[in-house]
C-alpha cells in the first residue's frame, strides 16, 4: 500500500503499542512495511521527524505541541491521532531524601500534598543550614515529567525555579546519577524508576497518576503535511496501534517478552511486566504498591486524543514561562490532538476516562480549557507572564 515507513522510538515501556504493532505483525497485516528505529534523545526524534527522516514517531506529548507552536525550536506542525500511553511516570527519590521526607511528613505518605509539604520543610531546613539546594532531574524541558514534578512541589510551596535545581537528564543516566548523589530525585517513565529501586538506589515516592489522574504521556506523532497527504497510511497505522493496545492489556507477559528484547527496550521482562500491571516495587525492602492507573495503554479511553489534555499541557508551558498565553496558540495546541481522526478510523473509544475534569490533578481548581488565565491565576507559584 505504501513505501517503507521509518518510525523512531525511545526505549521506554510506553512505546509498547508501537513496538507490539510492528513486532507482532499488526502493521504488516495492514499492508505496512515498518522499520522501527531506536533513538537516544528526544531532540533526535523530534528533528528526524521534522525533516522527514522519520515518517512517524513515539513522542513526548508536550514536544508535539511545542513543535507545532515553534517554541524553543523550528516550527513544524504535528498531528497526533493516537495516544501511545497515558500516565506511566513516577517520582523516585534517594534513600537519604526519602528518610528526610518521611521524618517531616504529616499524614499519608501516598498523598502528594503531604509529601509536597514535607519537601517544603526539608527545603527550608536545608536553606537554614546553608546546604546546597536539592537537585531533581527530568527528561526534557517539554515533558510531562517536568510539569508533574513542578506541579507537585509547587503545591507544597516549593518554587521549582528558585528553591531547588531542576535539570534535564537522559533516562539511562538517571539511576547512576541518583546513586552517585548528583541528583536527589527524578521523574521519569518506566522502566527506570523500577531499576533504581531494584538496585537499592531509590524509593518510588509517587506514581505520576498520584499527581495527575489522566495525563497524555506519549503520542504517535506525524508531520501534519505528511498525514494530510497519506490518510490511508495514517488509518492503517492507527488501526495497527489500536490492535496492539488491546493486545497489550490482554497479554502482558507476552508483551513484556517482546519489549525486553535488546533491540527494543533491552531490560528484564519481569521489570517491564511489573510496570504494565501497575504493580511496582517501591522500596528496596520489597514493598509493593499497586495502581490500575499507573500506566494506561488500551483502557479508560487512553488511546483517544483529548484536546483538553493538550490545553492542560499548553497551560503548563505558560505557567512555567516557556511561552506567553495566547488564544491562537491555545487553539493550535488543542488541534494537535486529533480526536476526530481517531474516531473516524476507530469509532468511539472503549472505556471511560474516570479522572475528574479529564485531568484529575491532586491540587488546584478543576481545569477549564476555556479559561486558562483564570485557572493559572489560582496558583501562587508559577505565573501568568502576560
Amino acid at each position, binding site marked *: 500500500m505504501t513505501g517503507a515507513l521509518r518510525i523512531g522510538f525511545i526505549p521506554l515501556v510506553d512505546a509498547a503499542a508501537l513496538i507490539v504493532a510492528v513486532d507482532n505483525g499488526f502493521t504488516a497485516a495492514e499492508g505496512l512495511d515498518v522499520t522501527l528505529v531506536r533513538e*537516544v*534523545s*528526544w*531532540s*533526535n526524534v523530534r*528533528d*528526524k521527524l*521534522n*525533516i522527514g*527522516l522519520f515518517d512517524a514517531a513515539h513522542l513526548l506529548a508536550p514536544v508535539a505541541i511545542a513543535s507545532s507552536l*515553534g517554541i*524553543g*525550536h*523550528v*516550527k513544524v506542525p504535528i498531528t497526533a491521532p493516537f495516544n501511545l500511553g497515558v500516565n506511566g511516570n513516577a517520582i523516585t527519590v534517594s534513600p537519604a531524601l526519602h528518610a528526610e521526607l518521611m521524618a517531616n511528613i504529616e499524614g499519608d505518605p501516598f498523598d502528594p500534598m503531604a509529601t509536597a509539604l514535607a519537601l517544603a520543610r526539608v527545603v527550608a531546613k536545608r536553606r537554614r543550614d546553608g546546604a546546597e539546594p536539592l537537585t531533581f532531574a527530568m*527528561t*526534557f*524541558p517539554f515533558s510531562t515529567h517536568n510539569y508533574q514534578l513542578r506541579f507537585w512541589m509547587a503545591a507544597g510551596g516549593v518554587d521549582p*525555579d*528558585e528553591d531547588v*535545581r*531542576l*535539570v*534535564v*537528564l*537522559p533516562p*539511562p*543516566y538517571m539511576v547512576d*546519577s541518583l546513586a*552517585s548523589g*548528583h541528583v536527589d530525585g527524578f521523574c521519569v517513565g518506566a522502566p527506570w524508576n523500577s531499576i533504581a529501586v531494584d538496585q537499592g538506589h531509590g524509593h518510588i515516592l509517587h506514581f505520576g497518576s498520584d499527581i495527575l489522574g489522566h495525563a497524555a504521556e506519549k503520542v504517535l506523532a506525524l508531520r501534519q503535511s505528511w498525514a494530510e497527504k497519506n490518510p490511508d497510511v495514517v488509518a492503517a497505522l492507527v488501526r495497527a496501534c489500536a490492535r496492539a493496545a488491546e493486545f497489550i492489556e490482554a497479554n502482558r507477559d507476552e508483551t513484556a517478552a517482546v519489549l525486553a528484547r535488546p533491540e527494543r527496550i533491552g531490560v528484564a521482562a519481569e521489570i517491564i511486566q511489573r510496570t504494565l500491571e501497575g504493580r511496582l516495587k517501591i522500596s528496596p525492602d520489597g514493598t509493593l504498591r499497586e495502581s490500575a492507573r499507573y500506566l494506561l495503554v488500551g483502557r479508560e479511553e487512553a488511546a483517544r486524543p483529548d484536546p483538553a489534555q493538550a490545553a492542560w499541557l499548553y497551560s503548563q508551558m505558560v505557567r512555567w*514561562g*516557556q511561552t506567553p498565553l495566547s488564544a491562537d496558540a491555545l487553539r493550535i495546541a488543542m488541534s494537535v490532538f486529533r480526536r476526530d481522526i481517531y474516531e473516524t478510523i476507530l469509532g468511539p473509544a472503549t472505556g471511560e476516562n474516570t479522572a475528574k475534569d479529564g485531568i484529575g490533578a491532586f491540587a488546584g481548581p478543576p481545569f477549564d480549557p476555556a479559561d486558562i488565565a483564570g485557572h493559572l491565576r489560582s496558583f501562587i507559584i508559577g505565573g501568568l507572564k502576560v
Partner: protein
Amino acid sequence: MSADQSPKIVIVDESPIRAAILEEGLREAGFDGVVHISEMQGLLARIYALDPDVIVIDLENPSRDVLEQMFQVSRAVRRPIAMFVDQSDAASIQASVEAGVSAYIVDGLKKERIKPILDLCISRFNAFSKLQDELERAKSALEDRKVIDRAKGILMKMKGFTEEEAYVLLRSTAMREKKKIGEIAQSILTASEILK
C-alpha cells in the same frame, strides 16, 4: 566576544578520535578556542564554566537533551542559547542531522560567522563516518584472510594439496556457490570442528 575574535567552540563528543578530527579541522580553519568535553557528568555546569559561543554535539549522544534545557528561560541559564538553524535553514538542519551532528549557538553570534563552522563540522563528521566504514571493511578483510589461511591449512593437511591448490579449490567453490571465499573458508572451519 568582539567581532574579530575567534569564537569559543565546545565539542561534546564521547568519541576521542572523532573529536580530534573535528578539533584539528577547526584549528586549521583558524578557530583557536576549541575545547573538547568527553565526560557527560555535570555537562551543563562545565559548559557554563567554559561559557562558549558555539556548542557542537554528536547525535549519538543522549546528552543532547541536556543542551535543550539551555533554551529555557530560567535562573539556571545565564546566557540564552539558540539552535543555529532557523526556519529558513531547513537544508542546514537536514545536512547536519544526516551527518550526525548538531550545533547550538549562544547569544546571537552572526549567521555568516557560524555557517563555516557548521559546514566544517558536517564535512568532518562525514569524513569520520567514511573512515569508520573503511576501518570496518579492513577489519573484516583481515578476519577473512585469517579464516582463509586456516581453511587452506585444513585442506592441505586432509587432501595433501599445495597451498596454491587449496586456494584454487576455495575460489572455484565460492564462484560456483555465488558466495564469498571467506564464507566458504568459514564453513570448512565449522565442518572440521564438527567432524573432529
